């Protein structure tokens, strides 16, 4: 189902055609027969919500993943990519969101990493290296010095080094994955100039982002993905944000304003002042019993880090909190657990679970106190807790002590939830609670969160998925550029107001 291509209007020939690509991960169909064409000399944006399949598609094109179905035709030839290296040799380069330079080496050495010019004796030909680097830098129009140490440059410059690699390799297709995530406004502007430069040199560019203003600014065409499916391609100069958003969301959301108003109880946690070094400067927030507070913001805005400060995992030089009205200091997770705070972390596999342990063992970890007699663990109690939550949360697990490694994402997440519910917390912080979870389990988790709030628990939901925030929140705050830019009671919650929060300066 290829869109009505307007390729005839464009000068460049087709650089890459993606034909019916599907990619399946355990439990999730990440890409479902996606087809897109990219032309030489165009900036083609790929846009969609988190989890729409943008990154998976890019990784297929760059050779990191192999597609289960479909094929790629690059410059008229069908290609079968087995590694990023092979893609690179063909002229396809993915520039990752995280910078992948060798911090100890010079700019020149980084640009020519893996292909340093050297003479017959194996000595590096520095003159040639620097000359070629200067050429590349001049061609790209960058303000870089070949002999600077890469690790000492500001992030934006480091990104330029990565892009310079594309120029040096003479890549004909360059993929940018959320390149502005860690850039300031001015730096982003410089990046766009660079991208335009590449484009003028006839390079095809795939640009992944979920920031609509940015896409309108830089791209020629934009293709939209939703839940792994291709939704259509639009000519950027003919559309506005609303048209793209309509394709991105595409479903009828329950209008949050129609839900019955909640009646929040007393203040559970109130933070008068919190600073997260490198992320957030003196924010304030509070959450009440029976209330779901949504926390929206872009990836990298410091939301998870904020949760880590609250939970005692991260130091903060400046924080003042009250718990049920009394001033407290939380300096370790055990303090937080003792007070009655739970944290369902964003990274389930690294922070949420001990994969080789059983469901029961994982669940009782923060509440060992409750299942012990004089330090000895009561297996009966453990099993009872596990069975209790297995039933309440409908967890499909083989048994209380079977390793949770092989469970699906949804069931693993429910075990993490059960783990914190077993501590009977007053406040539960959920960081991206439905990431990597299939649609069915997602709905169940959403229902559970609402029920918990109804039963009087205070809840903070951190999410970069707008629908999730809109669906769950009784109140939402938007974090952007180190500040709380919006605080929205449910009556004012809408996509519009949330987007305003992350675009305002």
């Amino acid at each position, binding site marked *: 189902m290829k869109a009505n291509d307007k390729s005839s209007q464009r000068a460049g020939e087709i650089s890459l055609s993606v034909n019916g690509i599907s990619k399946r991960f355990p439990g999730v169909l990440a890409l479902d027969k996606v087809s897109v064409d990219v032309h030489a000399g165009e900036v083609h944006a790929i846009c969609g919500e988190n989890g729409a399949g943008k990154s998976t598609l890019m990784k297929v094109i760059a050779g990191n993943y192999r597609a289960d179905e479909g094929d790629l035709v690059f410059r008229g030839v069908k290609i079968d990519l087995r590694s990023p290296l092979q893609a690179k040799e063909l002229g396809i380069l993915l520039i990752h969101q995280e910078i992948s330079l*060798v911090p100890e*080496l010079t700019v020149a050495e980084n640009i020519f990493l893996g292909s340093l010019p050297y003479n017959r004796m194996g000595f*590096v030909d520095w003159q040639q290296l620097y000359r070629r680097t200067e050429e590349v830098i001049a061609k790209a129009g960058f303000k870089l010095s070949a002999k600077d140490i890469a690790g000492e440059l500001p992030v934006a410059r480091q990104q330029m080094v990565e892009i310079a690699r594309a120029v040096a390799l003479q890549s004909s297709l360059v993929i940018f994955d959320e390149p502005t995530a860690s850039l300031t406004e001015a730096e982003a502007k410089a990046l766009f100039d660079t991208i335009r430069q590449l484009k003028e040199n006839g390079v095809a560019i795939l640009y992944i982002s979920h920031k609509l203003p940015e896409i309108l600014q830089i791209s020629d065409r934009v293709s939209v993905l939703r839940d792994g499916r291709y939704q259509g391609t639009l000519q950027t100069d003919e559309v506005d944000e609303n048209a793209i958003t309509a394709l991105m969301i595409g479903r009828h959301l329950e209008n949050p304003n129609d839900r019955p108003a909640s009646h929040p109880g007393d203040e559970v946690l109130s933070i008068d002042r919190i600073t997260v070094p490198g992320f957030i400067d003196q924010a304030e927030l509070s959450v009440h019993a029976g209330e779901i507070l949504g926390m929206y913001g872009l990836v990298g805005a410091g939301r998870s880090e904020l949760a880590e400060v609250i939970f005692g995992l991260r130091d903060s030089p400046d924080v003042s909190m009250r718990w049920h009205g009394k001033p407290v200091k939380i300096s370790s997770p055990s303090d937080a657990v003792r007070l009655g705070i739970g944290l369902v972390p964003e990274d389930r596999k690294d922070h949420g679970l001990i994969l080789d342990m059983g469901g029961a063992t994982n669940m009782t970890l923060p509440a060992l106190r409750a299942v012990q007699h004089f330090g000895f663990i009561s297996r009966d109690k453990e099993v009872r807790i596990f069975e209790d939550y297995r039933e309440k949360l409908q967890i499909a697990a083989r048994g209380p002590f079977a390793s949770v490694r092989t469970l699906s994402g949804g069931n693993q997440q429910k075990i993490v939830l059960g783990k914190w519910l077993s501590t009977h917390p007053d406040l539960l912080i959920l960081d991206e609670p439905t990431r990597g979870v299939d649609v069915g389990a997602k709905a169940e988790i959403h229902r559970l969160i609402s029920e918990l709030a109804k039963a009087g628990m205070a809840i903070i939901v951190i999410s970069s998925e707008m629908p999730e925030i809109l669906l769950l929140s009784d109140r939402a705050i938007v974090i952007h550029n180190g500040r709380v830019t919006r605080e929205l009671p449910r009556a004012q919650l809408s996509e519009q107001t949330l987007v305003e929060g992350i675009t305002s300066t």
Partner: protein
Amino acid sequence: MMSQVSAHETHMMPFAKVINVAKRNPIWLVLVVLIALFSFQTPYFLTVFNLSNILYQAALIGFLAVGLTPVLINGNVDLSVGAMVALSACLAVSLQHIGFVPALVIAVLACTCLGLLNGIIVEYTGVNSFIVTLAAMLGVRGLAFLYAGDTSLSSPTSDLMELGMMAVGPLSATAIVFVIFVVVFQIMLSRTAHGRNTYAIGGNRAACENAGVHVRRNVIVNFAVSGTMAGIAGVSMAAQLGAATPSYGAEYELWAIIAIVLGGTSLQGGRGTMIGTFGAVLALAALRNGLNLIQVSGFYVLVILGLTLIIALVLDRQFNRE
């Protein structure tokens, strides 16, 4: 903290260059302080004879440290080099009957092969190099004992001793060879593609794999080179003493690692210089020599070894924090 010396520094004024090197390698200041300290304590320290003696004593650990530095810059470690010294020394002594040069070549090549084996195991099984070479430390020692038995071997001819005695003026040949190796390895690290890739792999291995650097080859070659240097250390130890026992070289790997870490090479990989390693090897040799001259018992050396290793670790943590 301490970065490698880049090529563009060759354009700087000589004096500025010296200052710069000293700033990047504070261990040289330590060396100066140690020399000053011991010179005040005893008149026997600051003599041409003793200083060339220090260089001579430094050479054995020096060979190991020089060979190990690229391995550490790669982000790996080789703990088995001390045992290789024993094996090489035993081979060099006991094989004298097949000829002087062949014996030395076989002794060194045997260690090259063991280094190669370590490298291959590390790269192809994915087991951490600490574990692989820790096991090899014991295993290679076992090989040395298996080969030599529980006894001391002595050379039937005096060729080996003569090699050890060779000298140019007050400088022994061993010390000169050591200095030559330092220079060669410094050039290798800072000027050749292999050397630059060695830094790159230690700095960001994933980026190198993505960029098509032959990571495995680089790592394995560095292990083999480290083995070779251990072999050379073994041969020169046999030449110094004219004899060999399979218990030679115990704890040498620790001294070498201490020297490298004190010289500013990060245990996490990616940074370090031969100049730093050289300075640290000399400083440690001066320390041992000085303590000996002011008649501190040799038993304290082990205590100082352990303490400096732990202090070096703490410093490494302080300065090379992510």
